[in-house]
């Protein structure tokens, strides 16, 4: 069961209409290292984790990533909602507009749709947790690229929050990996 809460995890601030920045940020909605991929990856890997703490971490981080997906969507929505057709064309968002108007859709910055092959669910907890650690670092790197691309300090503030969370999640996954290793060592009988 999931319960929706009618609030964002972190406030969004958008200084002005900016379809160019929306086109870049949308990759964290539906791109390879985005929040949809992150949440679905963790929420589907959790079923076969061998210890309860790992099930908790994947459930809770997967849930927080859903909240991050909502923050990214809210940024994109507000960056393009006031854009004119001329502004959309000038930003190179006209290809997207032809298929989606100003609706939110899961694509990367180049317009390629989200695919399940962005993620893996291997059943081997060591392999899965290493993938999760890498995913957090890739998401952190993407947020750093987006911060470099951003010309709106208000949007940058929210991107910084999202970047920081990837760092914290990496830390928690590292601890979870250690706990799984300890559990495996305790099970070894020679």
């Amino acid at each position, binding site marked *: 069961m999931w319960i*929706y809460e009618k*609030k964002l995890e972190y*406030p969004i601030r958008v200084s002005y209409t900016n379809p160019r920045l929306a086109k870049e940020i949308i990759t964290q909605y539906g791109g390879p290292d985005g929040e949809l991929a992150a949440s679905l990856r963790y929420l589907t890997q959790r079923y076969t984790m061998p210890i309860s703490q790992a099930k908790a971490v994947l459930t809770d981080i997967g849930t927080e990533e859903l909240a991050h997906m909502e923050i990214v969507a809210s940024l994109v929505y507000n960056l393009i909602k006031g854009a004119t057709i001329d502004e959309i064309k000038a930003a190179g968002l006209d290809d997207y507009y032809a298929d989606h108007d100003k609706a939110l859709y899961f694509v990367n910055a180049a317009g390629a749709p989200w695919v399940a092959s962005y993620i893996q669910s291997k059943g081997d907890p060591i392999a899965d947790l290493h993938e999760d650690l890498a995913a957090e670092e890739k998401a952190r790197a993407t947020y750093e690229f987006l911060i470099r691309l951003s010309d709106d300090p208000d949007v940058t503030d929210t991107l910084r929050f999202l970047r920081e969370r990837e760092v*914290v999640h990496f830390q*928690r996954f590292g601890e979870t990996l250690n706990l799984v290793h300890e559990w495996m060592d305790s099970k070894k009988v020679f």
Partner: protein
Amino acid sequence: MDQRRRDLLRIMELEFAAVDLNLFLDTHPDEQRALADYNAVSQELMRAKMAYESRYGPLMNYGYSMSEGTWRWVEEPWPWEITFNRGE
């Protein structure tokens, strides 16, 4: 900034603390100080949410909070329709 936004920011602050402590406790369930902080934050968050919901309608549905008078869940604004200004 209006009162509603101020109240919402306070809830965001408290709930963020709860989320972060929650993740920490998942891998450190025996850390008593973090647990005490989590419980204190949870209590303050619950109070802040109850006060907010009595003014502006439910933050949660599916039985997690009651709606007085009318079904206020359907009222705007939705979360993506609330933006803040710099410095808020």
